[in-house]
């Protein structure tokens, strides 16, 4: 962490962030840097503001104070046109998938393409099919409606939509929640593979300890309204902070850690 960091390689830069609902503060003076090409996980106990932080970064929630820069551009108080241009540079996978229920998977993936590019319909369909395949779905999934998909396929379809515009930055909210261990493991591998082959920066909220061990470069631990630990998983589990200790030293944390050690 001591090496000089090229400022252009910081994709997300958060300084002095304060968010909250009414009189309840969620974050106070929170700082976080995410470098290009990293897979970073946000973890912390329930109510520590992981999803709120994610929503602030993707401009769904206006912070009360502080600064958030995406690709070096300030997004607090950004105007609509600049926000629209910025939105095509990141993709978001929502926790429940949030696929449009009246559209097929292919049409879902095509929505951002139709909205942001002037490409002809045939080419959009072709690009959408490629994204569906990149997300690891079988070819016949494109013509299906979201309600006809299983949980794991739904997440992959949502990932295909998040990848539609070839974003440099990908946000995942609980990508493996509700998946069986096999699907969850496959999803972790997919994320790592996409990161390596496409050079993606990935920011994810997760509770899945196996994902934390297998897929992340660094993990930011949220607690006490700020980031109390930010390090690769191996270092983070040795951190002194009592909240971090309690999180990783439970029976589940130890089990995931020892599986990793084998």
């Amino acid at each position, binding site marked *: 962490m001591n090496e000089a960091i090229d400022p252009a390689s910081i*994709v997300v830069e958060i300084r002095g962030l304060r968010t909250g609902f009414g009189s309840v503060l969620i974050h106070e003076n929170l700082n976080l840097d995410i470098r*290009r090409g990293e897979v970073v996980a946000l973890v912390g106990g329930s109510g520590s503001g992981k999803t709120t932080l994610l929503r602030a970064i993707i401009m769904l929630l206006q912070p009360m104070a502080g600064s958030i820069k995406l*690709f070096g551009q300030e997004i607090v108080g950004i105007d609509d046109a600049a926000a629209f*241009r910025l939105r*095509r*540079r990141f993709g978001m996978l929502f926790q429940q998938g949030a696929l449009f*229920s*009246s559209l097929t998977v292919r049409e879902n993936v095509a929505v951002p393409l139709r909205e942001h*590019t*002037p*490409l002809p319909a045939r080419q959009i*369909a*072709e*690009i959408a*099919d*490629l*994204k*569906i*395949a*990149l997300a690891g779905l*079988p*070819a*016949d999934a*494109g*013509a299906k*409606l*979201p*309600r006809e998909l299983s949980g794991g396929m739904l997440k992959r379809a949502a990932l295909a939509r998040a*990848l539609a*515009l*070839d*974003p*440099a*930055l*990908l946000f995942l909210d609980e990508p493996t929640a509700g998946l069986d261990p096999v699907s969850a493991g496959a999803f972790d591998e997919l994320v790592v593979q*996409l990161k390596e*082959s*496409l*050079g*993606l920066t990935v920011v994810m909220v997760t509770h899945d300890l196996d994902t934390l061990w297998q897929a992340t470069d660094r993990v930011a631990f949220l607690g006490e309204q700020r980031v109390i630990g930010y390090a690769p998983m191996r270092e983070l589990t040795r951190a002194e902070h009592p909240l971090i200790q309690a999180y990783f030293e439970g029976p589940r944390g130890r089990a995931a850690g020892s599986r990793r050690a084998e």
Partner: protein
Amino acid sequence: MAVVSSHPVLNPPAVRCEAGRCWCEGDWTLAGVEGLAARLREVRWPVGGIELDGAGIGAIDTTGALLLLNLIADLERSQGPVHLVELREEHCALLELVRERRASAGIVAAAATTPQGFLERLGRTVVQHFGSAVAFVAFIGEAAMALGRLIVHPSRFRWRALFGNIETAGVNALPIIALLSFMMGVVIAYQGGRQLEFYGANIFIVEMVALTMLRELAPLITAIIVAGRTGSSYTAQIGTMRITEEVDALRTIGIPPMDLLVVPKLLALTVALPLLTVFADALSVFGGMVMAQTLLGVSFSDFLDRLPRVVTLTSFLLGVGKAPVFAAIIALVGCYQGFRVRGGADSVGRQTTVSVVQSIFLVIAADALFSVVLGGIGL
């Protein structure tokens, strides 16, 4: 996810050919592919084999890789073998990934649908509507049985849900009912009054307004407003609860959805709609009175003096008596359509529309039936 640069493209992708060799240039990313096809058509491709030099590619993403692969495939078909050379290692890896995934993608043609002929469509529609009519009758039966169960075991009745529903469907609807029925009274008195004035029969405005309103229009207007306002909300609420599996959760906990979601709504509307109708009666007659005084010079006291002599109790009761029937139609259709929601948000919208259209249609049909039957027995 451009390999080199994640910044927006400044360098549009292009191909330049010189002396039998071609160079790919620029950033082959989604942001730059617009217009690429047109630029490629203008390239004078060398005849025979092509050496395509990829060293000049600044950045490439999956879309760019897809287009590059398509270009190569097209050229191989028209010009002969193409060799992609000097590609940077990381670009090569991405191209390979896209090549591999594209092979597994393949567009699966949608199942061929033969266009349906008129007779087939007609047949399907008839069968579909017949099925839904049968299901609706079954739903009415279920609701009746739930009602019967609750009469036998009154302790299970959900009073809180009943009163809550009466408040939202009845009390909260008072302002809009007041406004619209007052305006209806004004309109009827105005249109009728102009005709009566010709014959100097101004005082008959009392019969005109009171009978039309009390017997026909007030119950109908009230029912239509309530169908749009409350019937639709019943459908949307139950439909959303189905999607979020709340209806299944109720069943699992041992609360029959009929008991909690349908019976209280049905009873609440059966109580609220007649009361709203009486309210609408009063406000519409008041609207007629205001118009009669300003337009025809029939004073409030003349109007009120004549009113009880020309309007029988029967007319009033017939009007109000229709309201519980309308209420049952609106509540049952609203709830039934809510339970028919399948899948997602679009289904909620569709069933809500169907619910409002059907309940208004059935209310008007029932009103017509009342007129025929009551006319037949001489009321």
